[in-house]
């Protein structure tokens, strides 16, 4: 017999109080990133070493700017989720863990904001 209350069962949040939210978002972003990552690897290899005019002309095209924007935003979310698990697994000091978890979020936001701003500045 389970000692869980009916309310707890219905909420389905489990011991971590977040249910399968983390797991699910990690998977959905992973599926979205699969094609975007292949596309990004192709453009990165073809553009590295090219001059700025070539890169800017490439990034101005909507069909390039939009996937790159998606790659930045979805990649940042996927990264924050993944690094969060690594921190939770290996950092056992509670204070340090919380500090790193906060820094992890900040890092993802800052990198995404800086990349997105630059992309929009180039594209517009």
């Amino acid at each position, binding site marked *: 017999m389970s000692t869980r209350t009916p309310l707890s069962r219905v909420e389905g949040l489990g011991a971590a109080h977040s249910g399968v939210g983390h797991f699910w978002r990690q998977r959905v972003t992973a599926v979205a990133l*699969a094609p975007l990552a292949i596309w990004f690897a192709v453009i*990165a*290899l073809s553009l*590295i*070493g090219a001059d*700025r005019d070539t890169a800017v002309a490439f990034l101005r095209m909507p069909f390039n700017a939009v996937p790159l924007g998606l790659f930045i935003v979805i990649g940042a979310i996927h*990264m924050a989720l993944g690094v969060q698990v690594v921190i939770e697994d290996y950092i056992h000091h509670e204070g340090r863990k919380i500090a790193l978890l906060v820094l992890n979020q900040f*890092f993802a936001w800052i990198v995404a904001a800086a990349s997105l701003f630059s992309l929009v500045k180039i594209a517009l």
Partner: protein
Amino acid sequence: MVRFLMANLAKTAARARPLSPHFQIYRWPVTMVTSIIHRLTGLALAAGTLLVAWWLIAAASGPAEYDIFSAVARSVVGQLVLFGFVWSLAYHLLNGIRHLAWDVGYGFAVPTANRTGVLVVALSLFAAIGAFAYAYAMKGVHL
């Protein structure tokens, strides 16, 4: 009875007990290695986002800033880092697909998991080296 058990316990404890397998002395299972590489490539890609941000910031800033980025990217160290980034991306992507297959219930049998593990490592190296060879062949001067 208690004294007998205690004496027996002490005797057993004194004998050299077999130690549980320790990761430094036993052969690493394929699935363990592929799991560790998945984490490491994930962390490497997280660090790599700084380089992507640098590239875009440089492109948005101007030709002088972009030239600095290009010079670093074209250097030997830059090329090595770029190769590491591309391989990490290839590995994390391919092994990520392996994880998604597990999530929907395929490939859990140990021999299968071992085979797909080796396959993922080989394919990621093949993809990264192939992509680089292609980029060098196509661009020549740029890279």
